């Protein structure tokens, strides 16, 4: 057992940290949060130059063949600095899906472009039911003359507003088993019949409504197997949950660091408020939450990377981190008091992310249900 990072991982962490502190100041985060696109092509280019886009892709697809755990470490740092943009959608949701389930032609076409920073993807699964189960997939794709015609509404699709391609999860067959008959398509985001509307959200992340109205794709755009796409969706949701946990661990750590620094400086009653036991105990609880979150996330990320069965560990991690980040951000707000309740202060940026992170890819209750299922309940 080795719970330490390798020298290479420490270097990755350090270089990411140094880069982001420099290149992703809160001023930029705010500016992008308020913008329509939500990302900076300049920052995107620089992140590409560092090799982040292709970090986990094999070299033959223009990547550098790093592990999923390495990606988690990078995401943790991105979460610390609240990097806005479609990295998660493109690399985790899009790239890893194509890498895991795409055919050779798709891999050769898409992965090198992602690695070069030339393509943005998004993943359209959820619909107005807003849940992550197969029964909620009502969007239909009907085969017609060697093509598929897609109709339906996808909701809460992250970064569809800037995506080049949408991975659309659609129903191609109706049977009694909702998990049967699901197919995933690569749909050009600007092709006819695809309409994207940006939603205004708490975290000011770029979630969209995407309406497919007789959008037509060729048979070649099927990713994985026709009608048998659900296991692949489940697999990517598992990875996404773990990857999101990593990002959330970074955000929770940042919230803790901010609160602790403030508690050391803020003087009331003639002494730093961090010397009061009430504040110390908040901080101790936050530190435990961050620490616990980090280790179970690493464990799940390590399992995913090793290709070991990770359904239980992923669910445990997301069930815990979903609530832990929220608790940490809330305590940080309590410590900052009134000043934290302003738009000028940075803390709300984390609080918003904590809430969005809690919900996406299933919240704590959803993942506890998965844990219960894994226990045979």
């Amino acid at each position, binding site marked *: 057992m080795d719970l330490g990072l390798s020298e290479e991982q420490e270097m990755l962490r350090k270089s990411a940290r140094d880069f982001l502190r420099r290149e992703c100041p809160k001023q930029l985060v705010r500016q992008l949060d308020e913008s329509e696109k939500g990302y900076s092509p300049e920052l995107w280019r620089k992140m590409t130059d560092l090799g982040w886009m292709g970090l986990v892709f094999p070299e033959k697809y223009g990547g550098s063949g790093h592990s999923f755990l390495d990606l988690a470490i990078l995401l943790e740092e991105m979460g610390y600095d609240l990097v806005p943009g479609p990295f998660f959608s493109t690399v985790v949701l899009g790239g890893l899906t194509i890498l895991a389930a795409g055919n050779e032609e798709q891999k050769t076409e898409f992965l090198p472009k992602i690695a070069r920073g030339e393509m943005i993807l998004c993943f359209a699964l959820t619909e107005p039911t807003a849940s992550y189960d197969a029964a909620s997939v009502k969007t239909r794709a009907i085969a017609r003359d060697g093509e598929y015609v897609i109709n339906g509404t996808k909701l809460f699709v992250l970064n569809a507003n800037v995506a080049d391609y949408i991975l659309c999860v659609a129903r191609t067959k109706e049977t009694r088993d909702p998990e049967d008959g699901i197919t995933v398509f690569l749909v050009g985001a600007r092709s006819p019949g695809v309409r994207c509307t940006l939603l205004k959200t708490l975290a000011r992340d770029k979630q969209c409504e995407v309406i497919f109205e007789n959008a037509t794709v060729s048979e070649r755009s099927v990713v994985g197997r026709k009608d048998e796409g659900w296991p692949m969706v489940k697999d990517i949701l598992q990875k996404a949950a773990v990857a999101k946990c990593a990002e959330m661990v970074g955000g929770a750590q940042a919230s803790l660091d901010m609160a602790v620094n403030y508690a050391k400086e803020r003087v009331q009653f003639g002494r730093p408020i961090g010397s009061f036991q009430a504040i110390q105990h908040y901080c101790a609880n936050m530190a435990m939450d961050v620490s616990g979150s980090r280790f179970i996330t690493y464990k799940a990320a390590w399992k995913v990377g090793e290709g070991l069965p990770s359904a239980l560990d992923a669910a445990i991690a997301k069930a815990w981190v979903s609530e832990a980040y929220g608790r940490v951000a809330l305590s940080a707000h309590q410590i900052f008091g009134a000043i934290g309740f302003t738009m000028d202060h940075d803390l709300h940026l984390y609080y918003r992310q904590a809430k969005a992170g809690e919900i996406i890819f299933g919240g704590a209750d959803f993942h506890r249900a998965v*844990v219960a299922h894994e226990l045979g309940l």
Partner: protein
Amino acid sequence: MDFRFSEDEEAFRREVRQWLEQDIPQRWIELDPGIWEETEESWALAREFQRKLGRKGWLAPAYPSEYGGLELSHMKRLVLAEELAYSRSPISIEVEITVNWVGPSIMLFGTERQKKEYLTRIASGDIIFCLGYSEPNAGSDLASLQTRATEVGDEYVINGQKTWCSYGHLADYCWLAARTDPDASRHEDISIFVVPMKTPGITVRPLINILNRHSFNEVFFDDVHIPKENLVGQKNNGWYQLVIALDFERSSIGYAAGNQRIIEELVKYVKDTTRNGEALANDPLVKNELAQLVVENEVARMMAYRIAWMFSKGLHPSYESSMSMVFVSEVMRRTANAGMRILGHYGELDRDSKWSVMNARIMRMCLSSLSIGVGGGSNEIQRNIIAMRGLGLPRK
């Protein structure tokens, strides 16, 4: 990173498990004493088991071989601790105190003669210490203790009162903290002594715990004479020695494994039980509750693994141990409370009823888990440590 145990460690786990299956006395399993529930009968069984464990080198596996240990790796010690806890072996607080606090302190601060005299007998399970730290007015503020040891000729004469001495009525020695210099400041006049419990002048009075069992004691010292050579380490250096020894405390390392067993039993219970014609396992609230326990216990386990891993890297955990301790103690309390909610009225029944479920483990745990999070430094003190040592928050 690698979250796997090595082949060798897994083989060791199998070996321990197999040994425990054969060697935990049948009568112990029948008596099934939980924490703080030992009786004289179970105590005798436990001591016999601990001697057996000592012969395997597993009672004090970290000790050097010259003192009866195996110098076992930290990871194997973690494995051993997990298996002992999961199997509900006859090992409890008295062994933790003796093996993990007293022994390492003697190793670090004791004379050659003391090492020879005590360490081998600790590792063989022949002697047990009780802790003489707390006093009626010195709990969390331990440094305010008042018991005095006055140097008279070749002896120290001890006067004062200790309390919460776990199994003091059955222990062979007391590991005593007392004041030795009335003029020094409160951290600079404490010394540590080994006091045989049979020494004249010692009176032991029972404190009946919340489970209605005799586990704690008040111990009175009235002109108790002990030879000077029973001083451990330097005179007036006791506070420092005591703080170092608190960091040896690794008893929480196996707790998550013990708690896992309870959770597994609860899972089995809900699978086997129907209520209003419906399996309890189908109740979404029950599922949610049990899943949360599994999640929390996994976090607790990772925190414990971190401690073992840090030791294995030659690092010295301090606030990390406090985190692990606080977290697992609270998970255990929540497990007991979730268990009570799931069992409902059945959770209230003690063991003597034909209606009892899970051998009344949940109701017993509901009581016993109150002590975890108080003893050995309350969770408030542990949180202070996390805040000040771990996060660098100011004292004033």
